[in-house]
């Protein structure tokens, strides 16, 4: 449905230097799917979205929607945003304060290439307002809406044209936490029901994991990994992805030798481990092993299988649904998330066990800097 091919976009800072915002970005979004661009601020995700929208002029590459090329540097095509016919929800919602709810939603039907007769405009606007549950507020001034309602109005305005592609730029970031959670479900239900192809931009990994069919993690203008939420979480492609999505323990290690089925034996800071790797690793290679806190099981009695380590409880943080344990294995602290029923005291010894499947070996990335 949407095809982005080797897209490069630059912009100029105050001193006129070109800043590479998106570099060689390529991805495909199949019809009806929700695709998320995820990354820290300044990673190029918004620039990529705005290039698809036509609000930013790329330097090179190609973008097609359906069968229509909307941008191509090779053949010199740049369709201006107002003739791309895409729906977009902005971070600030960009609800026009001088119009009513109805006027806001009707605007796209009154200004575009094909203008509809009055009756049809009314029908379609009311239909789309019903979809977002704003039909009883049609005559209200747009400024009188709450944050969540404005967000839904922005969505209605983007949908009213029945666009082939919906672009969402951090649509939930301006809502408070509770409402954000609710709108997340709402948005997912709506997208799945309407089956509209969607590109979603966010810096919030839990949002991305909850909503997406597939996710592209971006950093410094470059896509780091594309995959389903589960793949991204369980099989991070590199150190950046592992660190950015969720929290993780990184252990430096050296490969000793391969075992069957993509498993390897490594010698790490805390001892010998059996780990999994997607790519082939040669003996002697330097790697980092990423282990999620919830994949480290704690027990007071020695477990039977998996990688087993022995340590002392250093600190505990009670979080309600879980307890975070900081366990020291030798001098190396490891974070583990355990069930609140585990009551081992600080200073007491404890066993750690890890499924080799969940210990992911990654090549060290030189220019990677950890996120806070």
């Amino acid at each position, binding site marked *: 449905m949407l095809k982005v091919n080797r897209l490069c976009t630059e912009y*100029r800072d105050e001193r006129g230097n070109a800043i590479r915002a998106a570099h060689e970005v390529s991805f495909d979004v199949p019809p009806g799917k929700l695709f998320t661009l995820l990354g820290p601020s300044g990673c190029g995700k918004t620039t990529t979205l705005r290039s698809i*929208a*036509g*609000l930013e002029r790329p330097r090179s590459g190609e973008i097609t929607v359906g069968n229509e*090329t909307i941008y191509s540097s090779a*053949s*010199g*095509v*740049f*369709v*201006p*945003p*107002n*003739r*791309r*016919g*895409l*729906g*977009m929800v*902005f*971070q*600030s*919602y*960009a609800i*026009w*304060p*001088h119009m009513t709810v109805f006027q806001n939603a009707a*605007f*796209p039907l009154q*200004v*575009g*290439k094909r203008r509809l007769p009055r009756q049809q405009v009314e029908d379609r606007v009311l239909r789309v307002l019903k979809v977002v549950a704003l039909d009883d507020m049609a005559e209200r001034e747009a400024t009188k809406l709450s944050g969540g309602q404005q967000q839904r109005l*922005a969505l209605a*305005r*983007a949908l009213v*044209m029945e666009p082939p592609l919906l*672009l969402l730029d951090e649509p939930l970031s301006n809502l408070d936490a509770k409402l954000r959670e609710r709108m997340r479900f709402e948005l997912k239900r709506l997208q799945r029901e309407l089956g509209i192809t969607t590109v979603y931009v966010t810096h919030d990994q839990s949002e991305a994991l909850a909503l997406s069919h597939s996710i592209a993690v971006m950093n410094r203008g470059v896509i780091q990994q594309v995959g389903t939420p589960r793949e991204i979480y369980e099989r991070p492609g590199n150190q950046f992805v592992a660190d950015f999505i969720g929290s993780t323990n990184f252990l430096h290690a050296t490969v000793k030798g391969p075992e069957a089925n993509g498993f390897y034996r490594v010698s790490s800071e805390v001892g010998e481990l059996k780990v999994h790797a997607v790519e082939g690793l040669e003996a002697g290679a330097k790697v980092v092993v990423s282990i999620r806190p919830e994949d480290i099981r704690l027990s007071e009695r020695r477990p039977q299988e998996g990688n087993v380590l022995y340590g002392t409880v250093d600190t505990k943080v009670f979080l309600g649904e879980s307890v975070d344990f900081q366990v020291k294995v030798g001098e190396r602290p490891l974070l583990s998330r355990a069930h609140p029923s585990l009551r081992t005291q600080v200073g007491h010894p404890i066993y750690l066990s890890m499924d080799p499947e969940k210990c992911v070996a990654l090549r060290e990335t030189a220019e990677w800097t950890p996120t806070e």
Partner: protein
Amino acid sequence: MSTSTGITTITASRVAEFARPRFDLKWLIIGLCVALTVYLGVVPLGFLLWQSFFTPQSAAKAAEFTLRNYTEAYAAARTWVLFWNSIQFAIGTAVLAFVLGTLLAWMNERTNTPFKSLFFALSIIPLIIPGILFTVAWILLGSPKIGLINLALQRVFDTQTVFFNVYSMWGMIWVDALHYSPMAFLLMTAAFRSMDPALEESAVMSGANVLQVVAKVTLPLVWPAIFATLLILFVRAIESFEVPALLGLPVGIQVFTSAIYQAVHRYPSQIGLASAYAVTLLAITTLGIYFQSRLSTRGNKYATMTGKGFRPRLIDLGKWRYLTVAIFLAYFFLIVVLPFAVLLWSSLQKFYSVPSMEALSRLTLEPYRTIIGYPSLARSVWNSLLLSLGTATLVMLVTSVICWIVVKTKLPGRWLLDNIASLPMVFPGIVLGLAIMILYLYLPIGVYGTIWILLIAYVTRFLPYGLRYNTTSMLQIHKELEESAAMSGASWATTFRRVILPLLKPGLLAGWIYIVIVSIRELSSSILLYSPGTEVVSILIWELWENGQYVELSALGVMFILALFVLVLIAQLVGKRFGIKEA
């Protein structure tokens, strides 16, 4: 349109389905507005400079390059007198207006002087009493022969001494400084407001008294604002025309503005000489404005100016507050009550006579009847209305586009456009009038002698004001509001009409009303550009003065002031609603 439409349309038209030839309104509108602004801002200036270096063109002889205008102007001892007069007048006015304005601003912002709500009136007085009426009123008050102040003092002291002669350098400074003091008040109020009072309070806590606080803390901190205010007052004073023309010329005190007027109105008119004077004056004002804007930007960076919501603890003046309130009431009397009262009195007399019981019995509405039946009144009111409404509308629309380019786009050279549109700020009214007069005397496009030349002058003169009002509003429009319209399929022109302009409305309206008011009172450019049939109200007042028809002038003046008062009240209401909406 094929070459100048820009890349957007060219590349877009290559896509098959958009292949139909499109006439892109966007670049047409932008092109027209930019061309108009550049034309208005640059061409008259260029022509003025050119003219000052050439001999007059006549049917027999083409214009030739010459430095004679300058050598003649500067060889004459008269010119140096002129220069000295102008500087003396401008500095005197700036200092006196500054002292008055600062005293009032300090009383209003930092002390517990009673009747403070009256201070609000200070901000609107300069708008409702045009310079020419203020000057005429002060002639009626301070002339040596008929001035009421002299007559009253002479009666009290039973002498024939002339106590106050408005026809003198000091008289000119006095009247002009009074006229500009509300401006000083407003500028200094802003300076006081942006200064953190904790700095003063800590001086009080250290044991300083009021005078020490003012001298050691307050003044040093507001110094950049003080200097900027003095500079802008100096520029305004050296540009002012009404006071030097009405008070200085009868006794032979010439400054640049009145000398330009005289050089043009002499027979044969000496346009070359006038241009030489105008270029000199322009150089002075440009320097002044340049340093003033430099200072203001520096002042903003001044560390103590935090500028956010604090209400200073007011200094308790104790019984001294009776003195401050007396100062304030006296000032209010001098600037509003006396001038208006004297105009009102004179407008109710058949022939001008000083107030007495006898004159009181002869009150009549005769002047009002005369002026309403005056042959050119209806025409000049109509001209003034047409011009002010037309100017305001045109300026606000053109500057909204200019401002959009400057604020919302990243077009290279947009800062230049901003500066060109602000350029007319440095033009004294009479210099602009002269430049435009010369330009359309040479350009045979049938503008000279029509009302259009006045429209061109007004639009040029008030372009910077429109730009400022629009910029304030434009900065508050989030760029996503525009982008969402584009994503909805709206073209640039549609977006501008249906999203930008409605969102700009408060600023547009406030700026529009302001420009209506200032163009209705415009005199110093019009005086060189009007011709029989295109008089405006301020010109009519000027002519009545020249004809000695004082009572009719007063009647017209009273009605004019009342009309402006109503307009300003409307503007204040609009401004208030705007403010509430933005908060």
